[in-house]
């Protein structure tokens, strides 16, 4: 094994996120990741269901206890998207980029989403759970027709299937290296790392009626937009869409 994050593989599980949280609440120190070859009740952000045909896509939740302050915790979600992108690079997937805050795109189409959760007690960050849904061996026909222009998979991007356990190991290798770096030197490098893979830097983004040019990523992971009248606006939640281009959320 070339990563320190222990991997637990379930043939079938309702939700890897729930299993990881139960492990954390039972005192598991981690780092540990739970993956399910078949996930029957996966969910995305805000309780949305996550479309995952059995055995085709990677559903994985990693329990980490990074040495960070609570306000720095969201950076781990951004870091996870960098880890996914690096693993896809290593697999030979071309044109990998990131959409703020933590979607992974290939040729502008969504290939992976991150569902980060955290637990804070007082002034301490107790743990972080990083849920990752990565489209690995899905074909277009596995997705609803309305998503065909906005989603992709490793198979669609490379023409080759990827064993799900190998995909998990590739991802954990990258996440492990970044997690170690955070514990050694803090999270100051994360925004810079993330920005080098940003799909939309300099583009006009819109969110809740606000439009601005994507200027940068703040030290705690926020999106910094510059409006047409010169205002600098910092966004800490939700997501922002590039004008004129549709991607899955």
């Amino acid at each position: 094994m070339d990563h320190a994050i222990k991997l637990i593989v379930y043939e079938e599980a309702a939700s890897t996120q729930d299993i990881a949280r139960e492990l954390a609440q039972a005192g598991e120190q981690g780092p540990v990741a739970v993956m399910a070859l078949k996930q029957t009740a996966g969910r995305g952000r805000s309780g949305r269901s996550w479309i995952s045909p059995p055995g085709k896509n990677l559903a994985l939740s990693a329990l980490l206890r990074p040495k960070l302050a609570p306000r720095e915790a969201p950076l781990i979600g951004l870091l996870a998207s960098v880890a996914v992108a690096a693993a896809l690079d290593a697999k030979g997937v071309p044109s990998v980029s990131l959409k703020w805050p933590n979607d992974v795109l290939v040729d502008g189409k969504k290939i992976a989403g991150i569902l980060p959760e955290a637990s804070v007690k007082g002034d301490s960050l107790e743990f972080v759970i990083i849920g990752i849904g990565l489209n690995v061996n899905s074909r277009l026909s596995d997705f609803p027709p309305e998503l065909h222009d906005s989603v992709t998979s490793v198979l669609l991007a490379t023409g080759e299937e990827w064993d799900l356990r190998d995909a998990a190991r590739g991802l954990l290798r990258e996440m492990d290296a970044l997690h170690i770096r955070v514990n050694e030197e803090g999270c100051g490098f994360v925004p810079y790392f993330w920005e080098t893979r940003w799909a939309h830097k300099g583009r006009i983004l819109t969110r809740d009626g606000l439009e601005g040019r994507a200027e940068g990523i703040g030290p705690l992971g926020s999106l910094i937009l510059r409006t047409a009248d010169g205002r600098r606006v910092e966004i800490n939640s939700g997501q922002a869409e590039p004008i004129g281009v549709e991607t899955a959320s």
Partner: protein
Amino acid sequence: MADVTMPMNGKVISIKVQVGQTVEEDQEVVIIEAMKMELPVAAPEGGAVKEIRAKEGESYQAGDVLVVVG
């Protein structure tokens, strides 16, 4: 008096208590989201909910008081 404060810059997505309700120490009071990270915020001490200053869907800065428990 124990204030439930925002642990990070982000948005309140759910308030799980009402004024007058009694809460226990460590009971989840508010759910917040920051950079898509979801986080339950718990009461630091038990007591009665005196005031709810946060609104669902609004953004707050780290340290802002969301709920007053006393």
